[in-house]
């Protein structure tokens, strides 16, 4: 494993180059260019506003700015997760020629896919920070939790991408399963709603590894509260396990890639 990681380090330039290619290719020949990076989160926020509005109507309570800001904060990492897993899942099949003809550590492809999505995430985040400054949500020391929470998200994204990209080489079903899970996953993840709204039973939703991370982000950025530590530990732990497990799984299957792609 140490050797494998050293080799990956040796090929880091290739990783950056492939990630760069993925970013460039996504925005070539498009008029909107980098605005596309913001489009998906904007749509999520808009649908969040609809859901929140309906909820407010049903509860006879006013719709608050903080609620919408919370949806916006959670929608970006969610969009990042979705796009990196979707893109990562296809990364090996899409680069079939390179997988079968040239030798280098193949985890470069899913990792580069995540890095390309991370780039989109940063573009969108910049827009979000400006938005948050304009609507003046304020700030607190709890903001310091943010990097750790984002790190957990990235780990989760890389681990999952590696696992599903390798698995989808052997079984094309994986691609469709991933697609379905990503489409409907938003209903099982507290993006539009808060876990608190579901009362006690909402805790079960926090088992979804993305949930405690998103919940924590919303807590420390918008609500100026500390994240729920046990759940945060769970989310982080899950991220680590996903990263490690995904990598080991990927490396185990890698020698057979060429013959089964």
């Amino acid at each position: 494993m140490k050797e494998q990681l050293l080799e990956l380090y040796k090929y880091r330039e290739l990783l950056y180059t492939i990630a760069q290619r993925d970013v460039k290719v996504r925005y070539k020949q498009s008029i909107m260019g980098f605005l596309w990076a913001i489009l998906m989160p904007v749509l999520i926020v808009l649908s969040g506003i609809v859901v929140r509005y309906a909820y407010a109507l049903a509860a006879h309570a006013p719709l608050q700015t903080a609620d919408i800001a919370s949806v916006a904060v959670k929608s970006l990492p969610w969009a990042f997760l979705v796009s990196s897993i979707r893109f990562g899942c296809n990364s090996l099949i899409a680069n079939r020629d390179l997988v079968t003809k040239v030798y280098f550590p193949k985890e470069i492809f899913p990792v580069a896919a995540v890095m390309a999505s991370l780039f989109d995430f940063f573009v969108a985040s910049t827009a979000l920070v400006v938005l948050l400054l304009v609507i003046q949500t304020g700030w607190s020391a709890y903001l310091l939790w943010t990097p750790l929470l984002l790190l957990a998200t990235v780990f989760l994204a890389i681990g999952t991408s590696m696992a599903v990209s390798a698995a989808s080489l052997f079984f094309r079903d994986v691609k469709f399963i991933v697609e379905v899970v990503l489409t409907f996953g938003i209903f099982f993840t507290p993006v539009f709603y808060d876990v608190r709204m579901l009362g006690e039973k909402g805790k079960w939703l926090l088992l979804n590894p993305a949930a405690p991370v998103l919940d924590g982000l919303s807590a420390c950025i918008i609500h100026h509260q500390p994240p729920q530590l046990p759940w945060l530990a769970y989310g982080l732990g899950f991220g680590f396990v996903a990263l490690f497990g995904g990598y080991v799984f990927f490396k185990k299957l890698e020698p057979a890639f060429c013959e089964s792609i």
Partner: protein
Amino acid sequence: MSDVALRMEHVYKKYRKGEICNSLRDLIPTLTGRIFRQQELSENDKREFWALQDISFEVKRGEAFGIIGPNGAGKSTLLKLLSRVVKPTRGLLHVHGRLSALIELAAGFHPDLTGRENVYLYGAILGMTKREIDAKFDEIVDFSGLAEFIDTPVKRYSSGMHARLGFAVASHVNPDVLLVDEVLSIGDALFQRKCVDHMRKIIQHGATVLFVSHSLKTVADFCSQALLLDHGHPIMKDATPRVITQYMTLLQQRRAADQNRPVVISSVTVRDAAGPCHRFRAGQKAWIDIEVSAHEPCRKLAVVLYVLDQSHHPLFTTSTERLGHGSVSLGSGDILRCTFEVELNLGPGVYHPSVNLLRYDCEQLFDSWEAAETIYVWSEKDITGPVNCFPRVVRQDLSSAEQRGASCYPAEEREIPENVNL
């Protein structure tokens, strides 16, 4: 440091034929089936086959090594093993130093990116660092001759431009070991010339090069040693000309056994006035007897004789029809015998008389036997080159400048123009 750049020891590679389960739905019946039929499967699994068996060879640093063989011999598998994209089922493989593969150029190109971006991308894929590419960028672009189009997306390139850029990048990697597939046949004649020269330069600079090719000419031109593969078995490893001759014999055996051809060349022999002979003096007469047998009727057949040199370059071609004997129509079971008389006005060296069966009006090639025979031509005179003009020196006298005097050349004519390179 050892002088061995690459070594294979008893390498085996097994593949599975047929469809490997590609969806979960297929997997379930296969798995359940396997539990019940485990015994018989492992005993007699016909879906497996050996692509390579017991391959051992080593290539010295700075050597050019060729791997030849008919289709299905296992050349591509060998290439994949060497470039480490597949692992051998058994056996050991050592490569010392950086290995780079010049295989299927431009697999790494992305159509939407510009030529410039693709040079960096492909360079990185082949293992160059950004700094190395920066340093060589101008050289690469210059070599490809695409400076004008370097900022155009590669999808607008013609296939030739595509391949030229690919070769330009790949050949500037500077590896210790270079694998070369069928890539030296791209671009126009000028570019090919450039590629060949560049390959020679790479070899001269001490890189080890492995050619895996159908093109015997390439292998003969570059490689001193070669390995012949057939059906995954190593047949022969020796000096290239001998391996090529063996390969020709192998092809001929296979060809003669082929019952699907309506007509085959069944034998070719070379003789002098006394009988079968392989050594000739330059200028001597030789007779080439050719026997053709027909399994099915065929019409308007002409026997074509051509001579190849040691590197399999054609030197000379003629045919029964072109020599004014008209074409022949053969019935089923007929045997045609013909004899060419040739004067071997050839330079000293090794030559291969070869035979084709051709129908001229529709250009149909019935059968072809390249390098059917091998002859050695020697000459008392010290000359080189494939042709022999039987030279003689009839005059050699020196007139010194002093004798002629300086007045022979007016002063202004003796001035050397500035652009002449001394």
